[in-house]
């Protein structure tokens, strides 16, 4: 990611850092940097997905039972909310390429609002789990066939959704940074890679949820009762 910053003796355009030859090279470097970073993120979440896979294969009955205690509607609404936020983000990126900073600002604020709704619903779910003694540790209680293995499910659930939520919080910080840039008209038709790259990050975090949702909420078949 590159930041916008004016340097006293910099080359003609204020948004070009002096160690780059031109804006094109700078933009390509920033984009490649974000894609490479996302590759590392895939490996980061990959560790937890591997653990999930191993235990799901080993303890299918417990995972099925534990998944019944997930709040199906909360997860589903959250999925829709996040997909919506990806839409507003994609529109913001498009607007930034056309230099329409006012649109960018409002679309990004909508993105942040949807992100906040997601985190709110997540917090409500966490609270529910706490009340129902589903948080792993000494107070964990599970009325099912296989409570010990169900505790592993919930450990994974909290680790995976917790790290996902942490990424959402970081994402909110990044989006507020580009809202600031766009509001100050530092995003231009020529220089919009901050918006593009934060957009990539945001979509990535959404994609992680798209995988988490079926793995955690849709394991069992008879859910609709909620």
């Amino acid at each position: 990611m590159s930041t916008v910053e004016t340097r006293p003796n910099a080359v003609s355009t204020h948004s070009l850092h002096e160690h780059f030859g031109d804006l094109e090279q700078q933009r390509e470097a920033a984009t490649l940097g974000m894609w490479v970073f996302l590759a590392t993120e895939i490996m980061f979440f990959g560790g937890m997905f591997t653990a999930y896979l191993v235990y799901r294969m080993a303890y299918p009955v417990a995972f099925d039972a534990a998944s019944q205690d997930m709040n199906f509607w909360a997860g589903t609404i959250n999925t829709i909310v996040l997909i919506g936020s990806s839409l507003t983000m994609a529109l913001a990126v498009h607007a930034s390429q056309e230099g329409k900073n006012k649109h960018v600002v409002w679309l990004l604020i909508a993105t942040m609002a949807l992100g906040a709704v997601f985190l709110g619903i997540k917090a409500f779910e966490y609270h529910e789990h706490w009340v129902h003694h589903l948080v792993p540790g000494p107070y964990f209680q599970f009325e099912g066939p296989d409570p010990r293995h169900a505790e592993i499910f919930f450990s994974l659930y909290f680790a995976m959704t917790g790290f996902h939520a942490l990424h959402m919080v970081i994402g909110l910080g990044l989006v507020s940074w580009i809202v600031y840039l766009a509001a100050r008209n530092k995003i231009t038709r020529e220089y919009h890679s901050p918006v593009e790259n934060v957009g990539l990050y945001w979509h990535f975090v959404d994609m992680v949820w798209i995988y988490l949702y079926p793995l955690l909420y849709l394991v069992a078949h008879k859910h609709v009762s909620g």
Partner: protein
Amino acid sequence: MASAVHNVVETKNYLNSDFGIKSWLLTTDHKRIGLLYLVSITTMFFVGGFFAMLIRLELLTPAGDLLQSDTYNKMFTMHGIVMVFLFLIPSIPAVLGNFLVPMMIGAKDLAFPKINLLSWYLYMIGALLVIYSIVTGSADTGWTFYTPFSTQYSNSAVITAALGVFVSGFSSILTGLNFVVTMHRMRAPGMTWSRMPLFCWSNYATALIQLLGTPVIAITIMLVALERLFNIGIFNPQLGGDPLLFQHLFWFYSHPAVYIMILPSMGVISEVVTCFSRKRIFGYSFVALASIAIAVLGFLVWAHHMFVAGMSVYASLIFSFLTFLVGVPSAIKTFNWTATMYKGSVYLHTPMLYAMGFIGLFAIGGVTGLFLATLGIDVHVHDTYFVVAHFHYIMVGGAVLGYMAGIHFWWPKITGKMYPETWGRIAAGTIFLGFNLTFFPQFIVGYVGMPRRYHSYVPEFQILNVFSTAGASILAVGYILPLIYLFWSLRYGNDAGPNPYNATGLEWTTASPPPKENFHETPVVTWEAYDYEHMPPIPEEEPVVHR
């Protein structure tokens, strides 16, 4: 060369363009960040060495008389954590790679200078967390943090040590990210991939491992810390958790991490061997692609650390076979260096002595690695000193010697001053001798059955352990010598001039120390790497000028 002129005209370079503590701590210049790393990494090297010395002193006698078993466990744990995560992994990429990669490809800086500075701060936070864990009681799990001991039973400072490893891992990731993007997007005109110095190729391969491996250990170690902190149970066997899963995830990174340590060293050796043989490297593209092959194969062999851990025997067979494959690109490199020296005019300067030491010791370390890849032998020598000797031949005999070769080779470029050649040779010889005396006896004592990680042993093993401890003290002298004479050279060393060895490579075409922007004009490359046939020989040493 032009030392008189240099003294009269105070040329502006990256060292004297700004002064004051802020100009260092907030610098985004890749050369200054390289020096920040040099200072912090050297410090951590001596911290880790201190623990090694305590271990060797304890093992001087069969009885546990210097350290109690608990303390001993902490000593070898902290030796491992400090040396692996805070010295070996960052050493060459963060110090020499930071300094040289942009210069070698003709760039003004890395692609993301601020992220580069951030990665140094992350390293420092990680290092401080590890030091904090040392003063609050140290971890005693071994550097491998094996569960369930690390998660359920150990009463030591596991959480802070694990967090230190976690944070410094992100420093490694960001360095790798910077290198990959820089090499893809910042090469000077004409600097094609096939003209890129092999040091850059090695660092590129290393960066791939850093990027794809480090996140996995980051999350794994984090889960261990969370398991201790919040009582969640991902690896807890009481809940049906699987300690083998931890080992798989751990070694998925930590075996490739060995290649993070050795690949950059190999890059240094490729540069040094060609320069001091005055010959183009033998088989440039094979050496370059062998780095990539090692990086890729390195990801497929991790479970050879787990042959006796209760894994399926079929899995063991496959991992054993794949481990043998890594021998192929490693051997390609070794043979090509030897072929480069063959019929070259070999100069025995200090960096070359280290490089030759590297080739010999790496060969021994590599071949004993094949012993260990063989299932039958591994079952016999698993967790003995044979394994300890093997990986020290790779990590010290390989990685550290490569690091020393590189520090000496580019010292004139970094500081503008020559190191004292005679002292350099003495230190290189001392290190080679001390190293072999320390670790060769460990092959024997391990083969006859001395297990690792115990503070006492049966009296029959004493003589070999005395050799080993004696060697360690010689090795310590060998490490302290360069510390002294390199400092000395900053003030009293001969001026180096831009290219004291008449070496090829863009970094030698600019002043020493380089100007802040590296090159006054962006270089245009029209030649292949290592065109030594057309370079003049290495000039004679000048006598030390006292001022």
